[in-house]
């Protein structure tokens, strides 16, 4: 049995990697980014999978064993609330506490006045980034942590130790989870390593989207310097978590750096100017990057073409996947766009099958395509529709 699973794993790994290298495998690989759907399928609440990562791992394994998928994320419900609680991170709405136990966790963005980073902090951020993170940012986002001027209280000290040890435990558990996915269902862990664009992380965790939008007009040079300060650190972090075998990609979660959130000049001079060199360096070191392009990035496809062939896999969310294929396929593999998420929620299985057929016929005939829904699949998706997507991909995805 173990031998069979290992053979299955090797087949799937080859299929997945071949497609990501823009080649033609034996069939279209299926790699759904299933998050809270796994909880629904396995009979857990959102609170359970967020609070106890072993429950989340169990849900991911149950789905991997039940569906004929080539690769999955070991835990797509990534935000472990045990860690968030150890620090009492203010930007989370925790299932079972701030939102119902049946709701997914949420990120809360503060008002412009209460942003985690204030406009006058830019110079310190850009020159002494580590000092800024430890001394100002962490105490602002974590209720349990005091700043350097505050007392080294019992609660402060305990929070730092237990969150550090907790993080270590959580990340170590991913190794066991990947081994169990391989052994128990022959499933590949789809990604390894995390990257965010400097511009995105500046908005997400420091200035807030509204604050950063104002900064683009009031202090654009400071925004540029802050993004440049982030670049080598984000690269280091991406590489620190990368797959040592260089099979699966580092994932970048792309948020609000595209038109119409910013204009074309801002995209070119800030977002792209400070992201492109990171991707090029990652590629120079032998790793692909999965561009998880949340929303619509169709206005920037020609910019992405500036990257070396094969350096990214472009994940299509709400863009026209046929346009994406026309503009990018000669250089990069494409994933996603297989079924819009709303259709997984309210559509019928036959409708799903027809959509998958159309996508595969339109974009996958030469290989270089990985089947997935448009966006991360949450608990609104119907199981029969996920099954229909899987079955149709297998039926129409044979080469």
């Amino acid at each position, binding site marked *: 049995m173990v031998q069979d699973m290992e053979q299955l794993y090797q087949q799937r790994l080859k299929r997945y990697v071949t497609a990501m290298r823009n080649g033609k495998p034996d069939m279209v690989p299926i790699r759904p980014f299933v998050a809270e759907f796994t909880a629904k399928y396995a009979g857990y609440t959102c609170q359970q999978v967020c609070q106890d990562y072993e429950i989340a791992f169990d849900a991911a394994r149950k789905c991997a064993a039940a569906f004929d998928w080539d690769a999955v994320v070991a835990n797509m419900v990534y935000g472990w609330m045990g860690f968030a609680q150890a620090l009492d991170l203010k930007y989370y709405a925790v299932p079972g506490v701030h939102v119902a136990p049946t709701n997914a966790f949420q990120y809360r963005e503060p008002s412009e006045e209460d942003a985690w980073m204030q406009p006058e902090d830019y110079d310190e951020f*850009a020159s002494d980034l580590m000092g800024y993170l430890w001394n100002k940012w962490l105490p602002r986002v974590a209720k349990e942590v005091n700043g350097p001027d505050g007392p080294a209280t019992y609660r402060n000290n305990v929070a730092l130790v237990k969150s550090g040890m907790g993080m270590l435990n959580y990340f170590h558990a991913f190794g066991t989870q990947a081994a169990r996915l391989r052994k128990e269902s022959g499933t590949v862990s789809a990604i390894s390593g995390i990257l965010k664009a400097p511009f995105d992380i500046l908005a997400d965790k420091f200035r807030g989207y509204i604050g950063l939008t104002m900064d683009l007009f009031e202090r654009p040079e400071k925004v540029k310097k802050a993004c440049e*300060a982030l670049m080598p650190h984000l*690269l280091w972090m991406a590489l620190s978590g990368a797959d040592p075998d260089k099979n699966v990609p580092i994932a970048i979660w792309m948020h609000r750096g595209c038109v119409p959130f910013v204009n074309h000049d801002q995209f070119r001079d800030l977002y792209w100017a400070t992201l492109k060199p990171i991707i090029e*360096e990652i590629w*120079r070191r032998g790793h692909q990057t999965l561009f998880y392009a949340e929303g619509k990035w169709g206005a920037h496809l020609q910019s992405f073409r500036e990257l070396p062939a094969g350096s990214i896999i472009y994940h299509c969310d709400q863009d026209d996947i046929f346009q994406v294929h026309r503009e990018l396929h000669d250089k990069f593999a494409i994933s996603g766009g297989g079924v819009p998420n709303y259709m997984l929620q309210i559509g019928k299985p036959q409708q799903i099958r027809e959509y998958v057929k159309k996508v595969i016929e339109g974009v996958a005939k030469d290989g270089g395509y990985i089947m997935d829904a448009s966006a991360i699949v949450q608990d609104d998706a119907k199981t029969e529709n996920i099954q229909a997507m899987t079955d149709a991909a297998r039926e129409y995805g044979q080469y």
Partner: protein
Amino acid sequence: MDIPVTTKTQPGECIPWEQKLKELPPIQGDTDLMKRVWQDVDAMAYVYIWHVVLSF
């Protein structure tokens, strides 16, 4: 790394070894060993804070 570092500390470090070395009495044994282990453990604090920023 080809991307220029504009911040006070290098990627992967919170407290540079050179700074810590000045605080220690003269090293009698293997300085390189001490440097490597200091940097390895220091990098864990670096990874911690960046994962709070990026992953949580």
